[in-house]
């Protein structure tokens, strides 16, 4: 256990939870916009409207009566994901990698019958996986085809890129790489590795696991310094345009890479955490202040240019 001092944190420009809650979320995220990001279906349709690529939506199941038709609904799809609209922490998500007739095989290899899937969807609708217990909607969408370029840095899961967008400007980015400990989930406090990404180049800067520096992936043993996100400017632009899309001034955009379709917006978060600072080895404060100094209206592309050139 090693403690630092208030002075050091201030000097390093680290943003703390209280500052984030009052000065970032409280000031720039209007409550009325939260449903746009808390509801995955709304985010998806909004993104499509704004031309931001998302995973393809196959079907939406809103009522128990539709559960009976599940067979017909699933008929055209070889692989798919079933997830609750208001789910959190990856609960209630089933990924079917392929099917043999009416037997569905999960990525883990477990076989499920159509009856199993019906039961699962029915549970989703009745709110089993939504935290408040309210009635929910089940989303059936396309499986993200894992892009092998990241296979060195992930264990049994799809890594995603979290970009913090402050008043339209991407201010910090990291990649979250699943590990054996995180059970294939890109969730930092479950043990995924956070890799800070250089805003200018998309290359890795440093990596942390459970808030402590690491250099190599604990399972694949590859050096994170070899990691570089392709099409970096396009990825940043995608994230930056979420500002116009949602009206949220402090938002976290989660982006995944599909082997065939490239970068896709996975979801948005109106309360992005601060661990990204540890992954990047630097504080957010200086970058936030630099953005605050920008007075003129800019397009997402212009803002990305500013971020790449002046914030990195």
């Amino acid at each position, binding site marked *: 256990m090693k*403690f630092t001092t208030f002075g050091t944190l201030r000097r390093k420009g680290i943003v703390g939870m209280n500052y984030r809650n009052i000065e970032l979320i409280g000031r720039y995220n209007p409550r009325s916009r939260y449903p746009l990001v808390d509801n995955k279906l709304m985010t998806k349709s909004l993104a499509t409207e704004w031309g931001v690529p998302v995973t393809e939506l196959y079907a939406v199941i809103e009522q128990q009566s539709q559960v009976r038709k599940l067979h017909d609904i699933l008929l055209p799809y070889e692989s798919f994901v079933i997830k609750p609209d208001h789910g959190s922490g990856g*609960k209630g998500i089933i990924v079917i990698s392929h099917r043999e007739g009416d037997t569905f095989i999960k990525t883990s290899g477990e076989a499920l019958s159509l009856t199993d899937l019906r039961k699962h969807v029915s549970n989703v609708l009745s709110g089993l996986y939504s*935290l408040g217990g309210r009635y929910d909607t089940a989303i059936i969408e396309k499986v993200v085809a894992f892009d092998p370029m990241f296979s060195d840095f992930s264990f049994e899961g799809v890594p995603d890129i979290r970009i913090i967008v402050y008043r339209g400007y991407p201010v910090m980015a990291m990649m979250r790489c699943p590990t054996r400990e995180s059970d294939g989930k890109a969730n930092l406090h479950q043990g995924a590795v956070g890799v800070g990404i250089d805003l200018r180049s998309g290359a890795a800067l440093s990596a942390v696991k459970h808030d402590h520096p690491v250099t190599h992936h604990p399972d694949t043993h590859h050096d994170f310094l070899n990691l570089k996100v392709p099409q970096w400017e396009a990825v940043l632009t995608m994230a930056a345009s979420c500002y116009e899309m949602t009206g949220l001034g402090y938002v976290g955009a989660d982006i995944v890479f599909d082997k065939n379709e490239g970068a896709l917006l996975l979801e948005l978060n109106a309360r992005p955490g601060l661990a990204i*600072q540890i992954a990047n080895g630097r504080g957010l404060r200086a970058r936030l202040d630099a953005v605050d100094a920008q007075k003129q209206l800019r397009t997402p592309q212009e803002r990305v240019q500013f971020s790449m050139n002046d914030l990195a």
Partner: protein
Amino acid sequence: MMSSRFQIILIAMLLAMTGLFFTWYKVVYLGVPLTPHEKRSFFTVTAEVDLKSAGGAGSVILRMPSEQKGIKILEREGESGQFGMTTATLADGRYLQWAKRDFEGSTKLFYKVSLSPDALYEPERVEAGWNMASIVDDTQYWEVSEQAAAATILDEARARSADAVSLTAQLIDMFNNPVPTDAVRELLAKKHETKTSLILALLAHEKIAFRKVRGIPLEDGLKQRRTTTLLEVRDEDKAALFSFKTGRISMPERFFVWYRGNGAIMTTKGIEKAKLRFSVTESKVAATALSEREALRQGSDFLNFSLYTLPATQQNAFKQLLLIPIGALVVVFFRILVGIRTMGTFMPVLFALAFIQTTLISGLMMFFAILSSGLIVRSYLSRLQLLLVARISAVIIVVIAIMSVMSIVSYKLGIDEVLKITFFPMIILSWTIERMSILWEEAGGREAMIQGGGSLIVAIAAFFAMDNSYVRHLTFTFPELLLIVLSLVILIGRYTGYRLSELLRFAPLAHR
């Protein structure tokens, strides 16, 4: 337009100042005790009557002390021995009568009054006692030779005074002069007369309205004392108090007036010899006694709005209720300034309240027992895939069942402590079990332990803050202190600085 930060500071300051002002006012001007352990003096004044029989029927009438400013009479009690004892309320006050048909030999009778000095106490009715009827008519009192001396003295005093009060002062001064005038010496030579009776006779002659004030100084250990006599003189509607020894005085502190008036304190019939003496004992009692509160209440309109005016049951409810802001402040402190994660924002406060009822150690043991057995049951329920409402209802039922079983078993084993288990808020407990198991499934056992442990630390801290006798006393006696708590909460609510836990969390960042 004021900045919102400035507004917050202004509001917080105003709230804190208001709270402090009222507290200060109550402490300084109304004498409300600031600490729960403040001791108040209680005195017992005993009037002891020694009687010697004259043979046959005998009776004693004793004047009972009436209510007076600054001293509250708590209890009166007479001891009659073989005498019959009755009380009577007449126009000029209350009397106690002891009587016996065939009284032989000698005996002692007692009358005890317990009282507490209280600067705020105002009685509803004060006796008059300006009746001069008992004062001897001066034509029979003075012999011719003395009349001249009295006239000389009065002339002299009159010449050197302006009104009744200054004349009385002058008279007392003349009688106390180490080198008295001839006239004074002549009167003093008069047989059987004391300075006191001479001064009174002169005042009566001058037609000045006066009354004697007879009382006992409240000093611990006083024994076999006669009353101390003071003199009160009225001039129009103002009255002035005098000591026969030192002249004009103000009412001595801790002086218990037994009787204001010119009549006798005790009269007897069929008694050969009667002696009235007083004794005083002092005892210290905690100021929180209810009677004390009632005295305070009658003393001030401001305190008429105090929580002490509520019925006892409601008072107890408020005692609990007013502690909750303190618990909330502890939660605010730990979450915002320290950065401890808890399960449910105010769950720790509710558990702290339960711990107050059960005491900490046994409360914690019961908490762990219910929580762990609840979690085991819950983990089975989650395999049944029940819906949320049904699942929590099931947990509630199981929690109540666990509590009942624990109570019955431990009661049979003779551990009564466990019966207090009913003080645990079971709905909250069930939610805690639910949240904890969800957390366990979603974020892993480590996170569940961190948040569960954090909640427990905050609950224990809140328990110590709320169980403190000073805090209990202050919150209930000075509810306006809540304004200070409010201002603190508002101020902390705008704190954008780092949390203590972030010193640890961001430490790896600082050293790179």
